[in-house]
């Protein structure tokens, strides 16, 4: 294992580096900025959709995310991996401000979407969540019809004016989610009457119906069997053409299969980020290596 620079010292003996975000006056990230970070690997990308800089999250006293900086690239999949409780979900939920709904959660740092601070007071969370969609670990379709599930987003955001437009959106979303053939004859049937894998694809269809820019997925396949998982993975690979996707997974093979970049979290810190094949074949940090070789976690 090769340590390329001094920021990759062992965690416990890491020197206190001042972690300041270099940003220009308007709050936008400067191109080619210098980021002081303890993370090994390449945290920045060219033209990121979303960027996080020195993000810290506290749940009351608990410091759940520590100085995480990372970019999310367009038209690609980034996988978050790491042992249970390391803060993957917490960080993911920062990206569309779902942590706002948790009473004692406190988020600090800068997170931008297309260069605009999403925690800015002028940023409307409703609008943000229309642009950054989310798919949850457990399939959670609304207890309504399949049609209504997909139509809900476009409806509340006022994206359509006619029933025909809505039908169109529902159909294309279900098609993109690879569910159309299976449900086209039972659109009025209950969404919760589908199988687990179908439900999860319905949730994905629901998320893409509002045409977001980023889709966040928190362990989307953990409740699915291998066949359903394969379908969802294929789907993620297709969706990559149009969306930026962030996926949390406990399944190393899945991360290797679907993602272009992988980020390894450990105890609230972002240890290493890099191209997926490099992370899995040649991790640069010892903790990453320990984790992916199954020595702990």
């Amino acid at each position, binding site marked *: 294992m090769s340590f390329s620079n001094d920021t990759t010292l062992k965690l416990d003996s890491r020197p206190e580096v001042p972690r300041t975000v270099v940003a220009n006056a308007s709050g936008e990230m400067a191109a080619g900025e210098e980021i002081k970070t303890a993370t090994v690997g390449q945290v920045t990308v060219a033209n990121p959709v979303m960027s996080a800089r020195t993000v810290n999250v506290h749940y009351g006293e608990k410091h759940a995310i520590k100085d995480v900086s990372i970019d999310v690239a367009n038209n690609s999949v980034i996988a978050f991996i790491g042992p249970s409780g390391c803060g993957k979900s917490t960080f993911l939920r920062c990206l569309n401000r*779902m942590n706002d*709904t948790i009473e004692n959660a406190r988020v600090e740092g800068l997170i931008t979407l297309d260069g605009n601070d999403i925690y800015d007071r002028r940023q409307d*969370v*409703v609008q943000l*969540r229309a642009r950054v969609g989310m798919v949850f670990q*457990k399939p959670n379709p609304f207890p309504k019809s399949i049609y209504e599930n997909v139509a809900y987003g476009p409806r509340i955001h006022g994206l359509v004016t006619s029933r025909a437009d809505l039908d169109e959106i529902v159909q294309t979303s279900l098609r993109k989610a690879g569910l159309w053939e299976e449900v086209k004859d039972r659109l009025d049937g209950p969404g919760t009457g589908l199988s687990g894998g179908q439900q999860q694809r319905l949730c994905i269809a*629901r*998320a893409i119906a509002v045409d977001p820019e980023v889709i966040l997925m928190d362990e989307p396949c953990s409740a699915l069997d291998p066949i359903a998982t394969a379908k969802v993975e294929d789907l993620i690979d297709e969706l990559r053409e149009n969306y930026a996707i962030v996926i949390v997974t406990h399944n190393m093979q899945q991360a290797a299969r679907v993602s272009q970049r992988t980020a390894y979290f450990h105890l609230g810190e972002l240890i290493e980020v890099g191209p997926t094949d490099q992370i899995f074949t040649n991790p640069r940090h010892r903790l990453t290596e320990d984790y992916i070789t199954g020595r702990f976690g």
Partner: protein
Amino acid sequence: MSRSASADEQRRARVAASLKRRYGAERRFRLYGQLAVLVGLGFVALLFVSIFSKGYSAFEQTYVRVDVNYDPEVLDPAGTRKPEDLADGDYGAIVKAALRATAPEVESRAELKQLYALASNSAPRALQARIAADPTLLGRRESVWVLASDHVDQIVKGYIRRDESEESRGVTDLQIKWIDALRAKGALERRFNRQFFSGGDSREPEQAGVAGAVVGSFFTLLVTLLLSFPIGVAAAVYLEEFAPKNRYTDFIEVNINNLAAVPSIVFGLLGLAVFVQFFGLPRSVPLVGGLVLTLMTLPTIIIASRAALKAVPPSIREAALGMGASRVQAIVHHVLPLAMPGMMTGGILGMARALGESAPLLLIGMVAFIVDVPRRLTDPSTVLPVQVYLWARSSERAFVERTSGAIIVLLVFLLVMNGLAVLLRSRFERRW
């Protein structure tokens, strides 16, 4: 580790022994449960049997047939035939004459008085109504069934025993003789008691009805429902979904739980002080009764609604919020529909309790003797449980069966209300 055969044997024997004990305990436990249910059902059955056996006879009333001569000399001495003059006629004399005709042998004033007492004192009014409806009856004769007095009714129904002394039964030997004679002639009959369902309260048992109390209960509950359900649900939604969790909301929560346990009569006192004395609303009216019962049922509804909201899986909220729904949208579109059946169950329980409540209503004066059936929320009225209480307190024997009759009506009211609510709830319930 190698297993020894004898140790295995021993272990199996122990498990077998403990199994026997466990099954025994299970059987006993089931038996206790069945016994408890049986005892409960037994008491309910006893209650129903005793109430129905006592009360069903209130739905029938004894009528006596009299041959009436609508004598123009008596009814319209001036001969004007104007409706207002006809209404002023001496119908009492007509009834008396008709009764005299059933027992021509009676002469003395004392005996005549006993004879006249066979018919209810509402009989003249019944005849007056017939003439008002059809003035051409004047000068003609007809056979009319009029209400018998409550004593006659009680004798006919067997509630007053003939072997009692004259004073204690309130019916003279002579009257019993006439009653038997009338019965033999077929001029005394038990008929469906329409008055009981359409009339208001009365001092005369044979004329007393529950309609006033039923309508009063209906109005009171209407006010209670319209106020307590929306307010209760709104309060629950606010406390559960919006209010910050801090010392103040904890304090509010503790107080709501305490309020649910406050004796209802205290709410009556509060209502009397606030609505009647401070705001100057009238006493004895369903509007104020409903307000008081609203105070009483609110905590129940709030607690049930909060429990229903808590039971909605958080994943549904997350799904809605994750789609970019605002908090209100997430609640209105997804959480409330799922919580509605539970909230309605709370509402039903609250309403059922409010229907049976009498103590707080006594305090705001809904215990007054009111003959008219209320038409508005601000008409003085009483409610069913208070009517039961009023009749149970009355000394006339005929009120005993009426008390049970009113309880039956109360139970039916309750069943209808619950049935409607269950129907409504099942329409709200999502089967997926």
